[in-house]
């Protein structure tokens, strides 16, 4: 992204990287990316394996054993993943169509305004948005999904717009000249070419969602955040560390899945 937008860049490498680096995803897999693609699952396996061994062998007191019961943790893990998946799906289904609409000739002039408004929203702390929404609409999973989606909306919208704007206009004209309709130009030329950038946005959205989903427990929407609150309230360091570790591992796995998705989605001709 250009360095003068007033946004907190979403927490991934892409947006903070200055100009020269951004097109990296559209080139061949660099060594750094390869390191991450292989290193992330290895790191997760080590962390998770080490933790599981500790959990299976450590002598836990009553409270610890109850808050770290296998069944409970698996359930929370699932809830966390579901929250992440639902909000990512909601974002993909809304932000990409909006991004496409905003790059069509009819609406092109509105795009900067929409992005500016979205930027302002992004400066709001996630925890504040989540809690305010819960006060307004009530507690529970749907509100958590809404809050997470709002938070993860901007990167996908912005990357969709940037990706589509980055498509060489001569290619679009050539396709039109060959007699393709506007829709087939969009589907067969513009979207495939913009896909790497769009997918980078989707990965950012996934990472934001999985991190924010940790707060879902504050509004009774489940997820692994509750392990941390339990650990804090009951003053059990082992529970606190387990919670932090499990959330971190889940986030890293989601990030990894996003990277794989990014790679798979890149059309063959662009790798």
């Amino acid at each position, binding site marked *: 992204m250009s360095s003068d937008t007033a946004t907190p860049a979403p927490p991934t490498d892409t947006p903070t990287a200055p100009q020269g*680096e951004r097109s990296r995803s559209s080139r061949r897999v660099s060594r750094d990316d390869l390191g991450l693609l292989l290193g992330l699952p290895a790191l997760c396996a080590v962390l998770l394996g080490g933790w599981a061994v500790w959990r299976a062998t450590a002598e836990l007191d009553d409270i610890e054993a109850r808050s770290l019961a296998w069944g409970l943790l698996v359930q929370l893990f699932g809830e966390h993943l579901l929250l992440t998946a639902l909000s990512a799906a909601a974002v993909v289904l809304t932000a990409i169509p909006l991004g496409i609409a905003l790059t069509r000739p009819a609406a092109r002039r509105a795009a900067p305004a929409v992005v500016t408004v979205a930027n302002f929203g992004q400066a709001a702390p996630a925890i504040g948005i989540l809690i305010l929404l*819960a006060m307004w609409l009530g507690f529970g999973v749907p509100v958590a999904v809404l809050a997470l989606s709002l938070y993860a909306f901007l990167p996908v919208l912005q990357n969709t717009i940037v990706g589509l704007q980055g498509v060489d206009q001569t290619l679009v004209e050539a396709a039109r000249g060959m007699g393709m309709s506007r829709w087939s130009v969009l589907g067969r030329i513009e979207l495939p070419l913009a896909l790497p950038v769009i997918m980078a946005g989707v990965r950012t959205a996934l990472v934001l969602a999985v991190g924010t989903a940790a707060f879902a427990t504050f509004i009774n929407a489940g997820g692994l955040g509750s392990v941390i609150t339990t650990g804090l309230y009951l003053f059990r360091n082992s529970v606190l560390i387990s919670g932090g570790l499990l959330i971190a591992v889940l986030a890293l796995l989601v990030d990894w899945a996003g990277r794989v998705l990014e790679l798979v989605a890149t059309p063959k001709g662009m790798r």
Partner: protein
Amino acid sequence: MLEFVLDRAPDLAYRSFQHVSLVVQCVLLATVIAVAVALLVTTVPRLKPVANFVSSVGLTVPSLALLGLMLPVVGIGTLPSVAVVTFYAALPILRNAVVGLEGVSGNLLESARGMGMNPLLTFLRVQLPLAWPVILAGLRVSTQMSMGVAAIAAYALGPGLGGWIFTGLAQIGGQNAVNYALTATIAIVVLALLLDLLLRVLGRFTISRGISA
């Protein structure tokens, strides 16, 4: 809500000050750490993949998870806030500092040496000024992010406006719950935008004339 704010104006002002001061101090600390590490990474190129791995993986770790991992080590209060905010603030700056320092052409470094500059002088008068715009861009990203992270760190009784958000949550259904959460959230947004403006102005004055076309 106006009444609510007026009633608590001193507290609001104090918390805003705490919040901004926490973020500014942590970002300063993070800048020093990140630039030092970046300098190390650019002089020992073999470390570069490690730095890139740390900065992308680090930003993936959710702040609440890091807070949970940090609390047993540093206890509750201000210290975990400082640790967590500094950690996240350092990563974007590190990334940008590496790119910025790498962008300084080798010819310039050689000329500097040829002119008799020692490594410290070369860093201060050649490398840092040339890399500064990129580092500053990272600094702005860090500052915006830190404002939000500082709010979360308040969960472990850290300082700043985040405390009001959690007060609101705890008093939910009560008369002032929404006021607490809304005031704090708006204040954080406004302060974040003000800080960003300040950093832009700082850029005007600190980016070397020769490269700010």
